């Protein structure tokens, strides 16, 4: 929380005049939901706080929660008008409004999460969460007794399909017979529907519930039913201490700190950053003690290999549901393929909705 009083501004001005130190860089954050206490926006806010902690007096931050996409252009513009030299927008729907405002303020740096439009002063960033998804799948394969995992999915866009596929590949790396059943919710956040979906999947024999939706409801449902939960966004072990196997976590603090420092130094350039475990943008939460030692070691080895680039979750051969090889042995899924992924790997049950 940052409030500027006239006195503070005056004092700062005197200090600046005396030491020639720069004014703090004001950094704005536009969130699409309330911060809450776990999940997508919470992680971005943790990133904001980590950046503040790392850069101290060099930055000052301000955020706006629950911004609708129709309102984003105004909010982003207001942030710039209030003195922000760097603005982060943390949901796909802010892409067009941010591009519009960015064009009007060429001296301000803009960073947009999860989109694809870039310009001279607007960069894009996202996490290769599918790396962590694969690792969480390995953990699922190790603890599942039925060999069936349930997956609560939001919308059939390539990012979500990629997550389901990476999870399935990881699970089948440990248990080649494993299968994954998917329920699509057409929502990113709906605790009621997420609970019902978890219960339906458990009734179908799933004893691990994974998710690409943003609430803690599946973890709570898994805890109540005595099965495993793999959450996404934040570590949600507090919602189901016995059920929480691990979580696919987003980490933004390192990236936010890096970008803010570059803007302060005047070295920032707009980029399209898609960073994985190696870049510190994604990881898995601490594994539940029930994960056996050998699998734990295997997960750690994979994690290290993903981080240094010597291995890839979509390393061939990867087959689709029909058994056809989509990624040849010896090659890995390239970014173009990953960004347009619209098919299920072998082991996922049911048809991908179109």
């Amino acid at each position: 929380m940052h409030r500027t009083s006239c006195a503070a501004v005056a004092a700062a001005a005197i200090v600046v005049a005396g030491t020639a130190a720069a004014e703090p860089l004001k950094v704005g954050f536009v969130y699409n939901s309330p911060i809450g206490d776990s999940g997508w926006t919470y992680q971005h806010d943790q990133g904001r706080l980590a950046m503040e902690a790392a850069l101290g007096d060099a930055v000052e931050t301000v955020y706006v929660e629950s911004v609708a996409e129709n309102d984003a252009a105004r909010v982003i513009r207001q942030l710039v008008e209030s003195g922000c030299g760097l603005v982060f927008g943390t949901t796909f729907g802010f892409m067009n409004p941010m591009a519009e405002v960015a064009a009007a303020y060429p001296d301000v740096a803009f960073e947009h999460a999860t989109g694809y439009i870039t310009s001279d002063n607007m960069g894009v960033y996202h996490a290769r969460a599918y790396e962590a998804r694969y690792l969480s799948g390995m953990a699922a394969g190790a603890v599942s007794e039925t060999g069936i995992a349930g997956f609560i999915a939001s919308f059939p866009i390539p990012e979500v399909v990629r997550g389901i596929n990476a999870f399935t590949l990881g699970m089948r790396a440990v248990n080649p017979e494993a299968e994954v059943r998917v329920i699509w919710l057409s929502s990113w956040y709906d605790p009621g529907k997420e609970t019902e979906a978890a219960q339906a999947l458990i009734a179908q024999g799933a004893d691990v519930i994974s998710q690409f939706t943003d609430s803690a409801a599946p973890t709570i449902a898994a805890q109540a039913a005595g099965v495993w939960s793999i959450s996404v966004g934040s570590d949600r072990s507090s919602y189901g201490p016995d059920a929480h196997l691990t979580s696919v976590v987003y980490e933004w603090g390192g990236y936010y700190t890096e970008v803010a420092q570059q803007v302060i130094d005047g070295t920032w350039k707009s980029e399209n950053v898609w960073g994985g475990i190696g870049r510190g943008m994604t990881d898995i939460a601490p594994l539940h003690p029930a994960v056996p030692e050998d699998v734990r070691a295997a997960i750690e080895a994979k994690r290290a290999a993903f981080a240094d680039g010597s291995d890839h979750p979509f390393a061939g051969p990867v087959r689709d549901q029909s058994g056809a090889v989509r990624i040849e042995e010896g090659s890995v899924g390239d970014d173009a393929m990953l960004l347009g992924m619209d098919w299920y790997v072998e082991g996922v049950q049911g048809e991908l909705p179109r």
Partner: protein
Amino acid sequence: MIRLERRPAPSRFWSYMTPVLAVALTVVAGALLFWALGYPAGAALYQFFVTPVETGYMRAELLVKATPLVLIGVGLAIGFRAGVWNIGAEGQLLMGALGGGAVALAFWNEDVPGLIVLMMLAGAASGAAYAAIPALLKTRFNVNEILSSLMLTYVAGLIISIMIYGPLRDPQGYGFPQSRIFHPAATLSPILEGTRLHFGAVIALVAAGLAWLAMARSLFGFQVKVVGQAPQAARYAGFSQPRMVWIGMLLGGALAGLAGVIEVAGPVRQLNDSISPGYGFTAIIVAFLGRLHPVGVAIAGVVIAMSYIGGENAQIMVGMPLAVTGVFQGMLLFFLLGSDLLIRYRIRLRKPGVAARPAAEPVPAVAEPRVESA
């Protein structure tokens, strides 16, 4: 002891004064709230009440935000006056956006003169057609229109989803659920340089004016009021209630649909899965806040828009979290609607000793109206 006493007739004085009183109460209660939470009360109130009208840009934004609320609110208010409870304006808005958007996307790479007019007609027609479903169910099978119109809202959201994941998805959009960006001929360009203010605001104003004329100066307006207030008398006078259901629903649907197409042709410029942040539901509050009067609705739309924009500014400038700005907005609504009590009731303060002897009191609640009607 505080006692509420029914007024013989609604007070004209208080019907103008309650909004003033409500704002005053909100300022006091808000200042207390901000002070208790450790925020600078003056600075926060300034953000809520002054910054939204401080600059030309902000005033334009205020109207951009108020436009869909006023358009929908005016249509709903007429329906509500007639006792037609259309709660599904959000769904009608989405269908209007889809209908108008489909026209825009059919000509996505062509410069068609007058396309925007065609889009608006398509949008209004789509909204009205969608509202015709609950109207038909009501008049034919006596299905409660509150439930059917509300439930159809969720259906509309899913229909939009099907379209933007399917036939209307942008082929160059990397699989994201959104349509192409509309051709400039299919958008409402700003009417004020450097702002987002578009022609939709003018349409909303005209709609409110026409609605006022119709309600105040026409037989239609009289029928609406009679059907809503005294259905028996209306039937006796030969005013058809089913006809009023049709008119109320279709009018509300058409204006909501128009708001939808204006929203996609104005600020959004494409179809996606977040066309409206609940405008169709907020407009219900706007309609009642405006006392179901077209001019009142226009003012209420601006007030609500102001509270939203003020809330954003308080987050940006004072660092106030959303939850606190939300409580403040809630307080404003509470006081605005709650103080309306004073229009029909007066507050009497009595000493406890007096209250103990009720037999000595006259019974004005019964007596006064008789005097009035005599």
